[in-house]
């Protein structure tokens, strides 16, 4: 590994000939180190989570763990309201962000003239650059009063959180689906148009199906962004450990997400207590959910990709 014969053969001077292999060796190993360190860190994090959060699943009876009340200072650890809270906010955010993001990507990639693209793309990247706390603050100051005036008992609801999260995951969804559309070969469009398809038919029947795997990745990454977001959600969802009912409007009720619970309660909890373990237990649940989403995305992309190349090429 340390010597590279192709560099040593030319006798242009020993010094120069040796310098390059050392540099190469260094860079190669730095890259290897960087690559390995991410794997090691993920494994360490997971082990730490299991060590700190594991006791929660052993010490709390399962029936209580899936109970409907979360009141940790009295030893009531029902995770159901937190799970439901995260679920409602995330599903809400995805429902808003996916159609909006896809339409935006299609417009950018297929319809918009170049000069519009050049203005819009940097603007969307700027949206990605807005810190989540700023969006949360906007939600608290602008969006929450609007929703309250629209008739909700309070503006701090799952819906408010869903809108903020939707805007937070939009840039991810737009730019990745746009890349996927861009990667569709131009011949596909030419072919479709040549046999008399309209632009809309080309987009809907040819380009979108061809870009499907990239779009699935975009949606999954958007979900990942939404479920893990903490601060902004904490500011606008009201943090009531409450299971909304259909009759009460479901999405127009305050909820408490898993991430917000960890953030709000971690600071004051006694290390090693059951409450502390349970907060890490919530971390494990989040980890498992994100992992499941990512592997699902991987599988969908894998099968679709294989089918496409197998069928068409």
């Amino acid at each position, binding site marked *: 590994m340390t010597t590279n014969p192709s560099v040593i053969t030319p006798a242009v001077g020993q010094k120069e000939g040796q310098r390059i292999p050392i540099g190469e060796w260094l860079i190669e190993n730095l890259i290897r180190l960087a690559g390995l360190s991410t794997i090691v860190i993920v494994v360490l994090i997971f082990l730490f989570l299991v060590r700190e959060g594991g006791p929660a699943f052993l010490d709390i009876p399962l029936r209580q763990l899936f109970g409907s009340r979360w009141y940790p200072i009295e030893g009531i650890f029902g995770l159901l309201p937190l799970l439901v809270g995260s679920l409602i906010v995330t599903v809400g955010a995805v429902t808003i962000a996916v159609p909006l993001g896809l339409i935006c990507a299609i417009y950018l990639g297929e319809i918009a003239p170049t000069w519009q693209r050049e203005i819009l793309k940097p603007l969307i990247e700027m949206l990605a650059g807005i810190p989540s706390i700023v969006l949360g603050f906007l939600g608290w100051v602008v969006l929450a009063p609007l929703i309250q005036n629209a008739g909700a008992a309070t503006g701090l609801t799952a819906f408010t959180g869903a809108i903020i999260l939707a805007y937070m995951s939009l840039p991810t969804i737009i730019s990745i689906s746009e890349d996927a559309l861009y990667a569709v070969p131009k011949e596909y469009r030419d072919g479709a148009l040549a046999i008399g398809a309209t632009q809309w038919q080309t987009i809907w029947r040819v380009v979108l199906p061809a870009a499907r795997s990239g779009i699935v990745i975009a949606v999954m990454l958007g979900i990942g962004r939404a479920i893990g977001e903490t601060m902004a959600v904490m500011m606008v969802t009201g943090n009531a450990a409450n299971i909304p009912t259909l009759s009460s409007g479901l999405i127009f009720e305050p909820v408490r997400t898993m991430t917000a619970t960890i953030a*709000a309660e971690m*600071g*004051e909890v006694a290390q090693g207590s059951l409450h502390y373990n349970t907060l890490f237990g919530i971390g494990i649940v989040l980890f498992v959910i994100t992992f499941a989403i990512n592997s699902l995305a991987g599988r969908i992309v894998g099968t679709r990709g294989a089918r496409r190349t197998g069928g068409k090429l």
Partner: protein
Amino acid sequence: MKTDLWLWTLVTVALLLLSGCGGSTAQAESTPGDQRAIQNKGSDTLVNLALAWAEAYREVDPSVSIAVTGGGSGTGIAALINGTVDIANASRQMKENEYEAASANGIEAVEFTVAIDALAIVVNLENPVSELTIDQLADIYTGRITNWKEVGGNDAPIVLLSRETNSGTHVYFLEEVVRKRDSDNKDIFAPQTLLMPSSVGITSEVRRNPNAIGYDGLGYVDTSHEKTIAVAIDADAPFVLPTVANGADGSYPISRDLYMYTAGQPTDAIATYLAWILGPGGQRIVAELGFVPLPEN
């Protein structure tokens, strides 16, 4: 092998950097000279106030450094009994058995009332309700009353606001109002209660939401932007508004004294520190942090 070594170095450095961030600012600095260190521990309700006092006192007397830690009133009192702290902070009075345990260790605990904690019940300025009993408040916060018309207001849902569960104020409100000082009462806040991360979160939601009700330390309340509710202990008792005067004379029901305990009559540095806390310099900070200063006598 070399990569492993690198990796471990990297991890170690990262951990060292991380652990460096968590250092306590209240730690006594060991500078030579006649430095006097005071150990101060106890109530979490008092911990911010105690920290603010300790910080401000550095400018008054730089030779005294005060280390403040929380942990709860019981922890502080236990440490005083064991002789490991100079001053214990407590949001309740010492119990008889604690006094006995202290004297068994040869320690005579001396009590100082250092500030008053009064919780104002706040609603929106448009809300017609202006008086509530503790019973009504308990029913509201446990979810037995869910509409303002049941307590004489408009036909509108009640939006409950509370501090997060890790707040000492939350626990105080739970014991004092939700459970009405009954230690056998196991009622808890209704699940619909919105938990706000800060006092400011409560006041700003109350200001814009006509259906909201919340509680806050008196220092956070501005009566030109939100309305305070007059509270009565029961239906026969008078309704009392939360004001500094009513908090100080004890007529406002949701208020309590906050204490500091010393081991024996305080001497030199501890005595001057306590005198400063009870004087105008210390009491100004009490007001700044949203507590009720002691009445001037």
